[in-house]
């Protein structure tokens, strides 16, 4: 299940809907990304996330399909927000379920690593010095690279 939305999400409700009624699931792994109050240029007061409607859903669908090819997954939930968010707010949820923990944990890490380098989102940070587009980080590219086959 993939959703791109402006509004917040309820982690408990999302995890419940991912697992309810499926007793084959033995493990659930989850990643939640939050807005930090610090960035490379200092304190930030907010960030605005922009995305490419249409392409975002397609790319995330492909990333989910790749995860399902690599691991025996029971379920996948990806929710990514856009719009203006303040420090402490949730940005993204990635949750995976499988019979066993390793597939759930590994696929969850894979999904967030690939999402960060392949899904068309951009962050504009607001700080004391004005606004600034976030630059892509090499460490994110390296994190995605480690899943290359």
């Amino acid at each position, binding site marked *: 299940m993939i959703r791109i939305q402006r509004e917040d999400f309820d982690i408990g409700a999302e995890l419940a809907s991912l697992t309810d009624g499926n007793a084959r699931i033995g493990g659930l792994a989850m990643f939640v*990304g939050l807005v930090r109050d610090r960035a490379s240029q200092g304190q930030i007061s907010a960030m605005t*996330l*922009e*995305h*490419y409607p*249409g*392409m975002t859903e*397609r*790319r995330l669908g492909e990333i989910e399909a790749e995860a399902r090819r690599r691991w025996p997954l029971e379920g996948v939930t990806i929710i*990514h927000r856009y719009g203006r968010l303040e420090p402490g707010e949730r*940005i*993204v949820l990635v949750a995976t379920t499988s019979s066993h923990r390793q597939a759930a944990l590994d696929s969850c890490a894979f999904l*967030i690593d690939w*999402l*960060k*380098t*392949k*899904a*068309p*989102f*951009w*962050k*504009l940070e607001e700080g004391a010095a004005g606004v600034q*587009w*976030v*630059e*892509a*980080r090499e460490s*994110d590219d390296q994190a995605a690279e480690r899943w290359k086959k």
Partner: protein
Amino acid sequence: MKLLYFAWVRTNIGKAEEEVAAPDHVQTVEDLLDWLATLGPQYAAALDRRNVVKVAVNHEYVEHDHPVRPDDEVALFPPVTGG
């Protein structure tokens, strides 16, 4: 051809999208970027760091030597920073 701009490509050019009739010699993404850069200082500024600009044609990432056609949707944007 429908062009879409995101993040600092959008803020430099000053619009989010536009419909353009590119001249016949525009056959590839590279040709398109060359032509766009002649349309005004804001385009030139947006495309100044040419090798950093990422391109998607009809929602697929492509390299700068990829062909472009009049009915394509072409998006120009910086490296992505979601998650």
